[in-house]
């Protein structure tokens, strides 16, 4: 009967995964950053990272100048930023 180590970090498969992640961490991080969409601020040209779970109509803020944009996606799934409407006197609940 083959006996396996009880602790998961002692298993060979786990060690192989860790080794793969260590060797390829740059590539993995690059893929991760490519998955996140980026847009440019129309005011100050800073890069704005769009959160992965962002949805149409959500407000994103430029990290540098603080301008607020409304997020939309075109047919190809590419993100577009439009300067958000300012608070109107009839806004609220």
């Amino acid at each position, binding site marked *: 009967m083959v006996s396996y180590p009880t602790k998961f970090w002692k298993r060979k498969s786990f060690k192989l995964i860790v080794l793969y992640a260590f060797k390829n961490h740059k590539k993995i991080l690059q893929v991760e950053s490519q998955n996140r969409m980026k847009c440019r601020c129309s005011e100050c040209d800073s890069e704005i990272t769009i959160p992965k779970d962002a*949805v149409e109509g959500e*407000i994103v803020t430029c990290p540098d100048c603080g301008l607020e944009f409304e997020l939309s996606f075109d047919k190809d799934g590419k993100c577009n930023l439009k300067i958000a409407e300012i608070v109107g*006197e009839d*806004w609220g*609940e």
Partner: protein
Amino acid sequence: MKTGESEKPSLAKKLSIVFDRTRWEEKALIKAARRKRIQTNLIDAKNICFDLNARYDAEAYGDVVLQRCISYFRGLHITAVLERNGLQVVNSFDTSLVCGNKLFTSLALAKAKVPTPETYVTFTPEAALDVLDKIGYPAVIKPVIGSWGRLVSPIKDRATAEAILEHREQMGSSLLQIHYIQEMVKRPPRDIRMIVMGDEVVVAIYRSAPADTWRTNVALGATTTKCPITHQLEEIALKAARAVGGGVLAVDSMESPNGPVVHEVNSTIEFRGAAAATGVDIAARIIDHLLNILKK
């Protein structure tokens, strides 16, 4: 059904959410509808173009439309068109119209004998000063349309009243020439918000004003804690909700020395604070409420 528990798949039902800004609440509603496997059509109000001679049916707008526009007038007018086409909108045009205007809300509450703060309306600064002199200071002046505590001002003395009324005249908005004046209710530094859906009070929370401020709007930094739903509060909340036409509503009340008084009923409710304070999945409860409407 327990809060947050998913229902049987109901793919045949279609829900539309009309929005113009995706707040935390809209994201929660979309997630809740998806969890319950409701086909959800998201309609950005800013892209809508209605042909008033055309017909819009459930095929395009779903079996029920949830109106979530942050702009009161935009939402109200869209609801008018959709209801004219025979579509079911939550909240209805009548409810939205009344709740969006503090004067109309006060009239509806008074008619239904719901306790409210002493309230006066005048249409000139002179008449406003006369009534303020009569009821005494401090008092509160509010815009009839508006939210998040915007331009809600305490009037501590006649000089402040004169200054505020002058500012209102100069601001140019016709709505600000309607002076909605209320007694300053002697209350603890908090109010009570009750979320009502149909004939049920789902949650109640205290909204406590931040230090050194008096307004209790979450948008202004108020903190929220769970409030027990007493029989008295439940009765008042349901009465107020019925008075404005019913639906998914947030009834705001203050603890006056003579018992709770209702000062506002909100129609496009924000519930992030209430969800955090109570742990109730309010978005899921709203979707359940819509499904119940469809079953009727």
